[in-house]
């Protein structure tokens, strides 16, 4: 498993996609933090904490996971991948772990960057800054969400092998279906894999106060995410195992 994991991480590092997505996530997250920190005023401690949850890693890492798995079919590299690692279940497991690790790393880079830049701007403007304990709290939540959605993306790519369909589907669920569910049927929406459950792990950030009360507790939200990942792993593994690679 260790060799497979190393190989998957090496695959990630040796294409431009990963670097491009890291850059995009960093730029987008920094842009939001710089704008809000400069244009906002009279920040409360909670608002500063919420500001540092503006880590857009989740969106990018889930897409990276989808591309990493569905791309094996798009580029027809699945054959050489399976030849090198014939145990398809372990292969899928290694890919999920690799993208979870990549998500955590990406989030670490982005979160630390926005915390540093945001704190400098807020200090310069004599605004409230976050306590170290709050920063650590935000950091681990961001990392956990990024790791979970990284694995989730791989699972989606294993089930929906058409890369374009998988990406469009993820974007639809993340930006249309789940927000609608959260607004209309929050009892169901909070279990969603791209907004609801990740929102529960991060906390109230990004949600209106009345919506925030509907979110799952972080522990429960983590279990829900693991449930989604487990279900996608099972479905993806069954599909992968039963497929003839012709």
């Amino acid at each position, binding site marked *: 498993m260790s*060799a497979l994991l190393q190989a998957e991480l*090496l695959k990630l590092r040796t294409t431009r996609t990963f670097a491009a997505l890291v850059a995009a996530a960093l730029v987008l997250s920094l842009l939001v933090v710089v704008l809000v920190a400069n244009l906002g005023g009279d920040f409360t401690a909670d608002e500063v904490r919420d500001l540092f949850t503006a880590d857009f890693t989740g969106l990018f890492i889930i897409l990276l996971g989808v591309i990493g798995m569905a791309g094996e079919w798009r580029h027809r590299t699945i054959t050489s991948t399976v030849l090198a690692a*014939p145990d398809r279940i372990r292969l899928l497991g290694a890919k999920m772990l690799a993208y979870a690790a990549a998500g955590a790393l990406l989030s670490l880079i982005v979160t630390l960057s926005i915390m540093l830049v945001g704190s400098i701007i807020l200090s310069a403007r004599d605004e409230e800054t976050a306590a170290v304990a709050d920063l650590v709290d935000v950091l681990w939540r961001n990392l956990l969400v990024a790791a979970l959605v990284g694995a989730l993306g791989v699972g989606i790519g294993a089930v929906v092998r058409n890369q374009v369909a998988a990406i469009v589907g993820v974007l639809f669920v993340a930006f249309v279906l789940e927000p609608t569910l959260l607004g209309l049927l929050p009892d169901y929406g909070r279990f969603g894999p791209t907004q609801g459950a990740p929102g529960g792990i991060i906390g109230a950030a990004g949600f209106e106060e009345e919506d925030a009360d509907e979110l799952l507790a972080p522990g429960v939200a983590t279990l829900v995410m693991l449930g989604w990942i487990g279900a996608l792993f099972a479905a993806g593994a069954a599909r992968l195992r039963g497929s003839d690679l012709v």
Partner: protein
Amino acid sequence: MAPVEIRGLSKRFGSVLAVDDLTFDIAAGRVTGFLGPNGAGKSTTLRALLGLVRPTAGTATFEGSRYDQLERPATKVGAVLEDASFHPGRTGRNHLRVLAVTGRHPPERIDAVLEAVGLTPAADRRVKGYSMGMRQRLAIASALLGDPEVLILDEPTNGLDPPGIAWMRGMVREQATRGRAVLVSSHLLAEVAQSVDDVVVIAKGKMRGHGTLEQVLGGDEGPSTEVRSQDDDRLARVLQAAGHAVTRLPAGGLLVLGVSPREVGEIAHDGGVYLVKLSQRSRSLEQAFFALTGGEQAE
């Protein structure tokens, strides 16, 4: 135990029987040509051997083990499949690095195989800029990375220019000389005839012949006889009982390789079979191949 053993292998895709009860072995230190027209079932057979498709029946093993049961498969088997694909944004060297990490091969093997296939100067270029020949060389380098005992090449000359084909032939021979079992599939007999020791000929998923090139296809000098009788089944049994390999011709009748018409006539007479046609076949390898596989030039 042979390096590669295929026993009663069949593969059905829906209503299509792509491979029908194939049985043959591949020997170490020899190049075996796996021949048949397009759609004969060659690629499906190789993919079943490599665990990429699940056989409907039968087994395909390497010294008794299925591909997915091999501890470190790349050290046992190297394969180049017809549609060898690479991530276009990854360099040739990085593609090999990924495989080396997966297979736990020493990093120095990367430079060794790049050198062996003549790809060192282009190793750090992205694969999307490679020519077809360079991609094929990279595929070969990938297959050789684990220094495997068995080499499987599916239509390896597809898309190669004449120098590339010549290089491939030399490489194949060299691998066999080193003691490796090499299986090369092709739908073009002429491309492999010069470099193979044995051939396995299939058509429509069925075995048409297996043995040395001369045994199976005869050739210009070798005697071969086409014969028809009132009871070809009985004649086939009589000839086989006399120790001769018999192939059924698609157009009817039998092809008896390595035996003159006179001998066939005597055996039929002794067996009490009435013949309706008996003729010596003088043909090229290609004609023999077409006759076996039911190609358009079959007589």
